[in-house]
């Protein structure tokens, strides 16, 4: 499992190397996915390009909009004080990734590019309408995160491109997020199911104006529960309404049965976690208003 190793010190140099190596190279961020896969024989890159010396990839800005540089670690994200309250789902998603050793090293960008359907932070970013930006020899391009992954491990990133950042637009007023994850144990878990929601309430804080529901580990990529989202528009955010949204979302997911859980149990979890996450988001939106 040997490879040639490169340590660019600028974005320009990194892009040049990406252009040179193409599919024979892989960019190395935290390495918590890449190196495990290389050891297991699932990946055998000829060239590994480490990004840790490239300046400008770890910016973290919250100025209404949220900008996460690709190399922002999960541990850094989970400790941002400004993320309590309406944006708390970003913390909730980040803090359940592996253990602290993993989170100290694993990056948001690496997690996005790894494109596991069970990724924890990705559903939160999708619920926040995130856009991701890739940079390659041909220049920079952005696209909705929701459209970025098409299958487990497969994204729209071209081999010569590196992901540079994810960006979420400013949260609307009277909005809040929540994230929940189910696993067989309480830490060091790959989600059986995880859900991230974002709700926007009306001026009276009684009805939902807009919703996003993103579900992880119940399809080949993170899925949006669009019918459930539409069903919530204009709906009073009572217990029954949220329960119905959960049930609808459960009908929209496409879980498989695997060594971790059965499809039937995953549907049950989606219904429950969506309902609970929505209730939490309602409470947060009201508290912040």
């Amino acid at each position: 499992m040997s490879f040639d190793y490169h340590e660019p010190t600028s974005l320009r140099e990194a892009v040049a190397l990406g252009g040179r190596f193409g599919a024979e190279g892989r960019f190395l961020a935290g390495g918590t996915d890449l190196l495990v896969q290389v050891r297991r024989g699932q990946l055998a890159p000829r060239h590994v390009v480490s990004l840790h010396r490239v300046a400008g990839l770890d910016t973290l800005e919250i100025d209404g909009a949220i900008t996460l540089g690709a190399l922002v670690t999960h541990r850094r994200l989970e400790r941002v004080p400004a993320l309590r309250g309406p944006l708390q789902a970003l913390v909730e998603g980040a803090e359940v990734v592996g253990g602290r050793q993993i989170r100290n090293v694993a990056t948001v960008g690496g997690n996005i590019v790894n494109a596991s359907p069970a990724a924890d932070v990705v559903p939160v970013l999708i619920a926040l309408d995130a856009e991701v930006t890739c940079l390659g020899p041909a220049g920079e391009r952005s696209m909705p995160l929701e459209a970025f992954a098409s299958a487990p491990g497969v994204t729209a990133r071209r081999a010569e491109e590196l992901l540079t950042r994810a960006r979420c637009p400013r949260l609307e007023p009277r909005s809040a997020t929540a994230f929940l994850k189910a696993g067989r144990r309480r830490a060091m878990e790959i989600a059986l199911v995880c859900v991230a929601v974002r709700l926007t309430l009306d001026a009276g804080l009684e009805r939902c104006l807009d919703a996003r529901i993103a579900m992880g580990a119940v399809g080949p990529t993170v899925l949006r529960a669009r019918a459930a989202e539409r069903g919530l528009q204009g709906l009073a955010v009572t217990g029954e309404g949220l329960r119905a949204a959960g049930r609808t979302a459960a009908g929209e997911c496409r879980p498989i049965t695997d060594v971790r859980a059965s499809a039937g149990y995953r549907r049950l979890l989606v219904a429950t976690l969506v309902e609970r996450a929505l209730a939490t988001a309602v409470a947060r939106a009201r508290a912040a208003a």
Partner: protein
Amino acid sequence: MTTDTRVVGRSLPRMDAPGKVTGAAVYAADFALPGMLHGAVLRSREPHARLVRIDAGRAARLPGVRAVITAADVAAVRYGGSVKDEEVFARERIRFAGQPLAAVAATSLDAAAAALAAIEVTVEPLPPVLDVAAALAPGAPLVHEDWADYAALPILHRDGNVCNRARIVVGDVERGFEESERVFTHRFTTRSVHQGYTEPRAAVAHWDGAGQVSVWSNTQLPFEIQATLSEILQMPPSRVRVIVPGVGGGFGGKLRIGVEHFAALLARATGRAVKVMTTCEEELTAAYARQPAIVELKTGVTLQGRILAREGRLWFDTGAFAGSGPGVASVATLMLAGPYRIPNLLLEGYAVYTHKTNFGSFRAPSGPQANFAVESQMDIIADALDLDPLELRLRNIVREGEEGPTGQVLTAVGLEECLRRAAAAIGWAERRPAPGRGKGIACGWWTTTGGSSGVYVKINPDGTVALNTGAAEIGTAALTGAAQVLAEDLGVELADVNVVSADTLSTPYDFGAQGSRTAFAVGNACRAAVVDLKAQVLALAARHLGVEPRALQVGRGAVIGPAGERVTLAELARLSQASGGGLIAHGTFVAPPTPYDAKRVEGHVYPAFHSPSFHAHAVDLSVDADTGEVTVHRYVVAQDVGFAMNPAYIEGQIEGGVAQGLGQALSEEIVYEGGRVLNANLTDYKMPTAVDVPRVESILVQHPSLVGPFGAKGVGEPPSIEPPAAVANAVASATGVRITDLPITAEKIALARQERTG
């Protein structure tokens, strides 16, 4: 029972702690020798196949590769515990996915891995026997066609795919069921779980040029490994030396040969030291995990809840080789009786061959499986009879002086105290404190395994004491406990004792760190040695002080006379070295056999529990109404330890054993499909983390044994026995849902509830 002890009975820090907290302690996984090569093992991917051809020619020529060995390079020896059915490499027949086919030694692990990939193997897959049901079906393929030709313990009942059937018969169960007012029949199933030690199995072997081999290994049983290697290498045991530098956890998974034979064979082939370590994948596919089990239990009771009869059968999937299976099947029958007074019994334990790894001994082998069945059924019975589960147990538990299932007389029976104190601590009066919340109890008993232990004890000229024992310290602090016994008897401090252990060449024989026996047996061997040593000390002191030995006392590192005469042990040791070769004594201990009624047992390798311990667990938990997730609020253990040699480390055994037990109860299973393991990694083999394990409250009950040092009993295994049943009972109490298959996952609970409410 005296409580005014000086050293023993106190929670003193363990002797090997400084090395462990500084990283100075060397484990087998750390051990290295100059010029050492690295070994790796090629393992079968097929669960059952004819091995047609294996060609290592290309592999042997790769850079860095110094040897490749297969069955052709090893004597055609079959070894094993109670049945000699094992071989180093598959010769003509592959019997489990993971069975070793070849081994390589190379200058690096990378080179060894490349060599493994270059070995050419041709197999003809055969239909595998995947589980007990398949193995027992009429016309099932035989896992060992030549089973009848294998050497085996004569006492075993073997037949085809059954490598032992152990049986207990007492009274007449049919009449007992006729007399019963209610009869309950239930079936329970459990999966395989792995010991989960954090240090892989490892061995370094080195031949000395005179045909003798030394093997440094993290085995729990150095003398057994010596014997097995002797068989495999076809050499006298005296030419095989096994040394244990340090063990990172064992729990029974490091009892039998693991990688020592590969290391020794590769070292012989290359003329260099060779180190072999298991990978995580090898541990979860080809190690001595706990047998999966099926239990069928039929119990007859009166309406007042008195048990009149029990018919129980437990089938263990023992895998491709008998290994520990026959013994575990025997122990199972004693566990199926539970710690209960039952006049009519028909209990059977079966060890059944399948095409899987040969499962082995894991902390209280057969205990969690049998106890899960017995204690779950007790609650079902209590519920049906509208009796308090605690009361039902109190009506049936054995009492002091009563008989166990094989007729042994039970003494030091602390079970009632354990039950009452555990129940009181958990708040048993309020069994269902809130919706979705419930409490459960489970109780049991266990053995302190026999076998002999020898020690040498020597007083050094600086007044320190050397304890030389054949036992390995596997983490329980058993050797610290034994050293506390030694220090107590000899009148020195624990800090004055140094331990040398586990070297088959230079330490006395020890039956091994298994069966909760080490502190018990080594402690007693120390007591015997001190009797002899004190006699030497007093004789020498008497001559030195001019006082009759009778008038002298040993204490505080010195010998003291009636008129204040005094000579230190250090001084006596110096005197003795100069004149008589030193103050040194040999002590041995073997537990006296426990009498039992031999007419009651058949095929039984373990017919009585020695110095039995008794225990009760109580748990308070909630179950999420929708997801089925279990949250444990409180966990209480009351364990009759006889005498608490070192309370802090006994608590440590309880806390750790409960954690393992909760893992088996809630989250752990090795998942098989088509004879292959699906989750051979720690991502998907789910051991509890620090946020999963609740606080455990330990109540140390002390009903002193007649045999153990200061009345101690074995303590290490029992805490892992009762958690599955306690959890099952609490979940049933909280939800009304009874799960009879381990692990009790949130999924099973949630789907069972969904089914119930339609």
